[in-house]
């Protein structure tokens, strides 16, 4: 990854034009040719630096629901519990964290009712109580990972 790749990653995180030749427009801003931009993007996608290139949906406005949940998994069955939680397609993100509440995950479902169902199913299958922390308010963040 060189400086031009870094510039590409930074500029793409701020948005992508919706017009007939969006890459050409971006290439002009980056002072490179459109073909070079397309080639570099393909490489960044192929080597996994960029995972997906497209729309970021507002899941809730589209009818879906999200919540943040956590469990206290005992050390002796930590991997089994993590495995059970990962096996739910409704679990979008899942992280081990250094606290007594040691597994934190995001549940994303198509309808609000399914969030509660998923929480109950995880509680049943793991035998643990599941802490459910849906958002009350989101504070706007300009999410950019500077490359």
């Amino acid at each position, binding site marked *: 990854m060189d400086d031009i790749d870094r510039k590409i990653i930074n500029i793409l995180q701020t948005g992508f034009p919706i017009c007939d030749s969006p890459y050409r427009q971006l290439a002009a801003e980056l002072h490179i040719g459109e073909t070079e931009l397309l080639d570099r993007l393909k490489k960044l996608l192929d080597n*996994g630096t960029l995972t997906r*290139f497209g729309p970021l949906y507002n899941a809730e406005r589209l009818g879906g629901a999200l919540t943040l949940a956590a469990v206290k998994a005992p050390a002796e069955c930590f991997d089994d519990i993590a495995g059970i939680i990962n096996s739910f397609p409704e679990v979008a993100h899942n992280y081990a*964290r250094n606290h007594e509440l040691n597994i934190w995950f995001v549940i994303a479902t198509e309808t609000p009712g399914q969030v509660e169902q998923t929480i109950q199913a995880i509680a049943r299958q793991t035998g643990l109580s599941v802490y459910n922390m849906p958002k009350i308010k989101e504070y706007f*963040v300009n999410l950019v990972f500077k490359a």
Partner: protein
Amino acid sequence: MLDSRDQHLLECIQLGLPVCSRPYAEIGKQCEMSETEVIARLGSLKQQGLIKRMGVIVKHQQLGYRANAMVVWDIPDGQVAPLGGHISRFPFVTLCYQRPRQAEWPYNLYCMIHGKDRAVVLMQLEQLNQACGLANFDRQVLFSRRCFKQRGAIYRRDATDSPHG
């Protein structure tokens, strides 16, 4: 709200935009729309806020952001909004939410801080504490030890057929 053509378009585009000279024309071929219609519909979905933005999802670990901490505070309810607003303006804060307190878990303000390593994250947290006057509130810092799973939200048509169901 969405009509059936919007839904079809969202389904076609959700795996990503083609990397080619006329990506919206390419998407149009997949969902039997003209390039003009695709551009008009996406522009309107974005304006309505149903699409937050077009752009990339980066694998932040690959860019060297190896440490992330979820920091939670117990803030008096009346002060959450101004503090949340203040915290979210720092560039290393990647998410900021108010969430309900739980039994034995009194924390109500959450933020995520990403950094190259733990020392950087802790320094950034100290900066937040100073700038926002957070030092006296009870808090917890939960570093991630392992990422088991990370995927984007997937759009499915049935998600919008019965928004209240």
